[in-house]
């Protein structure tokens, strides 16, 4: 029986000679290049964003998905990479992105109206090639609409970015890409931080309303899947390591006096921002 199997194997290898290099061995999985997300906690949790792979970020509204997206965009555009944002719900705020450090001239923004346009635009950009970072923002789309996106679309996206230097990031309310995603992060919001001048005010908002200021909120990111580690070939081990680690980080809201200052000159804006960063 063993001899027959060996003969059969050699026959198959002979028949496929010149077309398939090694039909009975697993394809080498190259070590992927990983880049920073711009958020240290996420980098320590997931290692970063993998190039040539699909990264899925999901979570409910106000869970910090867009904060992660803008941080990644800021990091990529600062490296002079061409980035694209396919905005499924036309929810991108250029002012917020500018303040977060995104170089807007490096960003191609495609404002879509429905899921069909969004998927088609993604196909076009992936086929066009050359982008360092492509983000597909489906964060405000209805969950039932996204569930009807055929799995073949996710497979197509994954295949399109494979062996390219492109990072494909998808933002969704629920996870839909299944095994096509190499990195899956679930985001959750922690309670918001409101600044008050005294404990008494903190306990009764309506009694002391004028002293309240929104400071920011915490975001908990949970790593659900990561294929970033190179794996051994010729083995049947699970191709990715399940992870259940999570990380918490805080975000800050720009104070409103800065937020409303969009029309001021860049120098003044920079000075205010410096004061803000300084604390």
């Amino acid at each position, binding site marked *: 029986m063993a001899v027959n199997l060996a003969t059969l194997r050699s026959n198959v290898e002979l028949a496929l000679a010149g077309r398939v290099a090694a039909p009975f061995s697993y394809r080498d999985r190259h070590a992927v290049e990983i880049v920073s997300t711009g958020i240290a906690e996420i980098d320590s949790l997931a290692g970063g964003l993998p190039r040539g792979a699909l990264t899925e970020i999901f979570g409910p509204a106000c869970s910090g998905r867009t904060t992660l997206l803008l941080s990644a965009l800021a990091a990529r555009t600062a490296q002079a990479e*061409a980035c694209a944002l396919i905005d499924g719900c036309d929810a991108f705020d250029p002012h917020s992105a500018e303040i977060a450090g995104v170089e807007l001239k490096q960003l191609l923004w495609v404002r879509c109206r429905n899921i069909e346009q969004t998927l088609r635009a993604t196909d076009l950009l992936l086929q066009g090639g050359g982008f360092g970072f492509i983000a597909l923002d489906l964060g405000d789309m209805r969950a039932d609409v996204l569930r009807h996106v055929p799995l073949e679309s996710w497979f197509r996206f994954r295949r399109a970015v494979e062996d390219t230097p492109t990072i494909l990031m998808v933002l969704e309310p629920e996870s839909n890409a299944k095994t096509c995603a190499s990195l899956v992060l679930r985001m959750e919001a922690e309670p918001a931080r409101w600044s008050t001048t005294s404990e008494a005010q903190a306990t009764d908002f309506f009694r002391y309303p004028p002293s309240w200021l929104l400071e920011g*909120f915490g975001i908990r990111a949970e790593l659900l899947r990561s294929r970033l580690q190179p794996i051994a070939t010729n083995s049947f081990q699970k191709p990715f390591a399940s992870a259940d680690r999570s990380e918490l980080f805080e975000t800050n809201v720009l104070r409103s006096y800065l937020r409303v200052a969009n029309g001021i000159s860049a120098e003044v804006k920079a000075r205010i921002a410096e004061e803000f960063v300084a604390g």
Partner: protein
Amino acid sequence: MAFASIHVPHFPLQAVVRAEPSLRNQALALVDGTPPIWNVVAANQAALQAGIELGMAKSQAAQFHAVEIRNRSRVQEKSAHAALLDLGASVSPRMEDTAPDTIILDISGLASLFGNEETIARQLMQRASSMGLHVHVAVSSNLEVALHAAHGFPGITVILPGEEAKCLAPLPVRALLPSAEILGTLERWGVRDCAALAALPVLPLSERLGQEGVRLHQLARGARLRSLVLARPGVCFQEEMALDFAVAELEPLSFLLGRLLDQLCARLEARALAACAIRTHFDLEDSFEKDFQVFSENSPPQLASKTYEKILSLPVPTRNSKMLLKLLRLQLQADPPHAAILKVILAAEPARPRAAQGGLFLPSCPDPEKLELTIGRLAKLVGHTNVGSPELIDTHRPGDFRMAPFAPVSDESKIPQKHATAVAQGSRETPLTAFRVFRPEIQANIELQQNYPTRIYFRGLRGNIIAASGPWRTSGDWWREDIWQQDEWDVEIRFDSVSGQSQKISSPRTQDGLYRIYYDSLREAWFARGRYD
């Protein structure tokens, strides 16, 4: 000194064939005249063999079904002449524009660049062929000899110094372009070629034919000398095509645009240039509505022809005709002309081609030509106004921005240093909270308590506002019609549970979070601007 003369035989025919290459191997006759009198003015060998004669009426010529009849086109002859000048300029800057069908080049000193004279002549023929022209090339140290040899001998003729008379000997006297009277006289004498003319004694010839006779004698001997009259080729790259029948559909129009673009790109390549913009001009057929207006009683007749004009601007100069055609198609699909097309004019704005040095360590950047095509396709999909780079406007009005063309740079040093928040990006521990915008803003109903929002109703949901920060008042543009005045609030909303689940977005709990709402003092209504995410 060495001169190369380039002659386009049957120039009117070749001008038409250049615009319609499928006619190259067919019997073709050109008609010209004033309607209704049309006569055959040119015909190729196949048409003459089929029985076509010059001067024949168009109605007679039309009876030869194997012969294609076309109108003589001065526009296409002008384009062909411009192409001929570009051909000459591709080899030598010293050029004489002798006639619409003939140019003469000074090719002295080009041997190190192109090779010997025969190689130069061969290259000229190849380049002419790529531009849709079949030419005769003659090279000689005598300008006049080169000129007449190109008129008289097909293909490539290289005349060595001292052999001018010998080479011109078999050339018919007609090729020297004498006046009809002198040509008749010479024929009566039995002088039919240059050898016979050169053998005549000069003085008796001068007594009988005058200075014209002496000039012809010198030409026949290859002894006449003159200087090159330099011409400078223009920088107008334009190709036109007038159509016999109006074209209303994109597919047949694409074939015509493709031909014109091929010609334009070949001309640009000959001049080592590329196109940074393509101007499209169509003359359109009068529509039914226009005809109706012309015949209506009160409206004045509108005699001006309708036109359609578009400019296709390119981020980087290119002469890739296939890519240009795709971009033009996308542009036409996005904004098609409203009537059938009678005439097509394409003009290229010339620019120096892009010369870029790739870097191993530079970040990946889309190929500009491919990127333009991708953006064109995206614009067709989502609309021109929905693709590009966001650009902030110098205003306090919340959410104001405009879309600019996407032109990324691949050099990190060219990225302008952002303000401190961005510079500190790497070291900043706490990222800034992002904001998502509702477009358009969602009207909300707000319950107030002591002038502070406490409950909110919007998107079919109701919720309690458990914390709020505000109001942050902004206003501006009071001198304009679109004045604005808003009181903004940052609010934290906890939505009520809904048992019926009438809305399909998701459960209300998943919508809890931080929102920005505002009261519009002018519209006297509350709106939700977006949410922090």
